[in-house]
């Protein structure tokens, strides 16, 4: 387990840069904030002894998804949004709904007593989670693992179909 100090550092890092994603006017800045936010998230994963997931998170998000975002932003040549008239009522409404959702989640988490106990100890701290996950993946999760192939097939074919220029 990580010390509370580090937890708060990374949690706040993640949340602040998460907020920066949606506040920034410039899409490139948003994308970079997203990367930082996900690094914070990956650190939180490590704090939960989920090393494999933490690594994957960095690899996939920072490595792949972020590049994709940046690539599209560059491709479409998007600059910072010109200052449009912001629809304050709609924005306030959206933020209010999101806040209500957040407080709803807070209040029900409060009422979940089991969550207030500390995490149960692990038998051995040495991370062999890659092996464990690998075993599960090829035993219990064979089927979804195959199906994920179909998801990627759909995405690949779909992206090619959609982004190819139509020859008239």
């Amino acid at each position: 387990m990580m010390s509370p100090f580090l937890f708060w550092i990374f949690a706040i890092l993640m949340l602040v840069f998460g907020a920066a994603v949606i506040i920034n006017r410039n899409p490139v800045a948003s994308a970079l904030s997203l990367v930082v936010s996900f690094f914070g998230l990956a650190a939180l994963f490590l704090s939960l002894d989920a090393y494999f997931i933490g690594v994957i998170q960095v690899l996939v998000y920072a490595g792949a998804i972020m590049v994709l975002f940046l690539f599209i932003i560059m491709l479409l040549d998007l600059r910072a949004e010109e200052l449009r008239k912001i629809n304050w009522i709609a924005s306030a409404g959206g933020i209010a709904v999101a806040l209500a959702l957040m407080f709803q989640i807070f209040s029900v988490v409060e009422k979940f007593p089991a969550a207030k106990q500390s995490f149960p100890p692990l038998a051995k701290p040495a991370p062999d989670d890659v092996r464990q996950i690998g075993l599960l993946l090829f035993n219990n999760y064979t089927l979804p693992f195959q199906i994920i192939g179909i998801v990627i097939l759909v995405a690949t074919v779909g992206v090619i179909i959609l982004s190819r220029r139509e020859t008239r």
Partner: protein
Amino acid sequence: MITLEHYLMVSGMLFAIGFAGVMVRRNIIIILMALELMLNAANLSLVAFSRFHVNASGTPNYNAQIFVFFIITVAAAEVAVGLAIVVALFRLRQTTNVEDITALKF
């Protein structure tokens, strides 16, 4: 001491931030990023629960981590398709702003 509660609250906040982004922002690419935040909020709570439900043998419940593994993959596919739609639309409309998309109204 940091407990499950803290993780869940942080996750809830991240989800709310993402949702606010989806509702408030008009730039489709940023909406897509906000969607990623929402998905990752779910990932965080799943991993926290995985650490919380420790197996009899003293290991975290890896089922949830595998779930996260799948979610990350699916999220990548979803982003790819979403961006492809944005590109297709940009070719026709030269915009990535949802307010400019008015051919179909409510």
